[in-house]
């Protein structure tokens, strides 16, 4: 009896599974149907640029069925976790999505990504379509290993105009302004700043900008160059102290360290009016445009540069963030995969339709000659602002976690988290990080 019931249950499950699997075979999406085992593979990130990339690849696959590309999407954190293991296993995608910097260098050192210098040299059109300042982020030791693939993403200070109006405040121009706003918002029951602290990298934006404003771009340049004790620069300590001051003042939303930026919960606090400001990448404009369309359309979203710090050495026009994302081509890909990949880079990327789609999504493509298109966009205020910001910045420092080696980057994020939680002092941070130099 017992046996019978169990067995029939098992059979029911198996039967159900079979029918589901059959159904799944029948209803494969268009991209998987056309992809053969030797198709080039591409991993993109979910979020603002996902539909743009999907559209670009769909168009490519339609026009080039013999050189089709199989596209999969991963969330940011999941991607960073998975891609390296996959590349290490020799099964990475043909197109490796990246940020340039130390992570790219580690791929180059391991011989995992193809040298694209010759390709660039023989295709001047490809080279000339990019803003030169962005293109150079894919160059290591004079050779090009990665090409920009989307939009400029400087870190911007966003604010909710409604709540600013409510307490009659202005966007902060200096650090002192910013600190003065904190008690005002708190008194009104609004968190001054939203922060996706669980994802850790949003914390870093604060450190990046403060160090930049206080000490200028050389401070991090020295750290990235692995100069001994580079973290001991007084600007780092001052920046960390300012962060802890802001934490002490209650500047960040209650529970910031359990808010994940990957889930966009940090932006949600801004547009639902629970927080007044957020320091985040240019890309969150794109997701707010979809998640909070009315908020963005009605001009409730304000944006400004990170405030200056009195006595600071850094040019207030300097910016930090991601100059762009990049495609590298796996050196382990088969010849036909590589050919398809390069053909796509040459004529499938940044087509007029692509560029327009990026702009429509609320992003500034990294290509030249787009001013008129930006001006025609309904998002022109933000886009022109971002474009000007990127174009006029004397220095555009790459996000530190990407600029450093993975081991250093990981230690830095974990220790910075401790700074925000006030578990360690700025001095402890500095000495711990000095010990990671060269790793």
């Amino acid at each position, binding site marked *: 009896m017992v046996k019978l019931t*169990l067995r029939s249950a098992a059979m029911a499950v198996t039967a159900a599974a079979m029918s589901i699997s059959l159904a799944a075979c029948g209803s494969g999406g268009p991209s998987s149907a056309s992809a053969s085992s030797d198709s080039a593979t591409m991993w993109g990130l979910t979020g603002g640029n996902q539909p743009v990339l999907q559209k670009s690849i769909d168009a490519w696959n339609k026009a080039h069925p013999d050189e089709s590309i199989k596209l999969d999407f991963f969330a*940011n954190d*999941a991607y960073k976790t998975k891609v390296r293991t996959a590349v290490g296993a020799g099964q990475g995608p043909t197109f490796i999505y990246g940020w340039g910097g130390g992570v790219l260098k580690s791929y180059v050192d391991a011989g995992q990504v193809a040298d694209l210098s010759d390709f660039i040299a023989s295709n001047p059109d490809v080279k000339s379509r990019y803003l030169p300042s962005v293109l150079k982020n894919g160059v290591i030791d004079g050779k090009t290993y990665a090409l920009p693939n989307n939009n400029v993403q400087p870190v911007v200070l966003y604010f909710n105009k409604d709540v600013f109006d409510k307490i009659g405040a202005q966007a902060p121009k200096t650090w002192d302004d910013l600190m003065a706003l904190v008690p005002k918002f708190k008194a009104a029951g609004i968190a001054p700043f939203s922060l996706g602290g669980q994802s850790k990298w949003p914390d870093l934006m604060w450190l990046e900008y403060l160090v930049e404003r206080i000490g200028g771009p050389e401070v991090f340049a020295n750290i990235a160059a692995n100069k001994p004790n580079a973290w001991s620069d007084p600007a780092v300590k001052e920046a960390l102290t300012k962060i802890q001051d802001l934490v002490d003042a209650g500047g960040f939303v209650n529970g910031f360290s359990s808010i994940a930026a*990957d889930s966009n919960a940090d932006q949600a606090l801004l547009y639902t009016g629970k927080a007044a400001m957020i320091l985040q990448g240019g890309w969150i404009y794109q997701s707010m445009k979809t998640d909070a369309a009315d908020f963005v359309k009605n001009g409730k979203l304000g944006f400004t540069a990170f405030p200056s710090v009195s006595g600071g050495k850094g040019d207030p026009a300097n910016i930090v963030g991601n100059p762009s994302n990049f495609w590298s081509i796996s050196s382990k890909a088969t010849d036909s995969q590589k050919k398809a990949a390069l053909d796509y880079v040459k004529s499938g990327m940044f087509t007029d339709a692509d560029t327009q789609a990026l702009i429509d999504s609320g992003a500034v493509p990294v290509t030249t000659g787009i001013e008129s298109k930006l001006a025609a966009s309904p998002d022109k205020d933000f886009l022109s602002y971002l474009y000007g910001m990127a174009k006029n910045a004397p220095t555009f420092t790459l996000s530190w976690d990407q600029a450093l080696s993975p081991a250093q980057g990981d230690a830095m994020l974990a220790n910075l988290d401790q700074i925000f939680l006030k578990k360690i002092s700025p001095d402890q941070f500095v000495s711990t990080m000095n010990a990671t130099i060269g790793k």
Partner: protein
Amino acid sequence: MASTTQIPVPPATRVAPSSKPSKQGRGRGRARPNFLGGLGGWLWLAVIIVPIYYVVVTSLKNQAGFFTSNPMLPPAEPTLDNYKLVLENDFAMYFVNSLLVTVGSVVPALLVSFMAAYAIVRGKSRFLGWTNKLFLLGLAIPLHATIIPIYWMITKAHLYDTLLALILPSIAFAIPISVLILSNFMRDVPNELFESMRLDGCSDWAMMWRLALPMTRPAVVTVGIYNALGVWNGFLFPLILTQSPSTRVLPLSLWTFQGEFSVNIPAVLASVVLATLPLLVIYVVARRQLISGLTAGFSK
């Protein structure tokens, strides 16, 4: 009273603990209502139910409703859109992957463990004693600590990102506990039965399937359920040993949905509900067997 020493329980009751409550429970229960116990019981029920209730209720809300409505109240207009969204995102494929990996791991693990347990209990060679000790060692070691070499081996064997990469180590990791439980039960099978079969000229093979298997069926069920739960819900192997959506299993898909649906918490929670649903169905259909099966092996 307190000096009561351990009373050997007759093997029969231990081999097949019945699913019906035993007599002493009834006797005690009738004494006088246990208010304190009842209170604790209801309290724990709340602890168990509230999160489940929250997950189910939230999964029926739309995204706007999630941000604006009271999190603990049922939605004014329940929607199944979230479930639709999850199902459209290859959920069925992940389900089938999970099923393949679970069946592919548990069946071979049971088979080889059963044979090993039989040999260990019935055999006397030094080799078998040594094998048994090795398996016992495997119980003590957190085998997940070996994930880096396993990753390396799987990579070198060109099995990375295949379902086999999940199946092979899962079989190995299931062996120690399976052999332990199975051999404990096999020791309870009266020796005389084996002897009489042996005298009838039966081979070890025949004795294994015709005597040992029926006699240890509860243990086999226990081991099967225990391992199946472990593999079905496993996360570390899929996280490290697979990457593409076509080899993704359910627990990993939950994690990736969490990233992909981002702020759409109701959809994320709908994926949690859907991933649990198959086991819930089995639980509802075969609860007695599941529970008594799990108990049989561990209450030894």
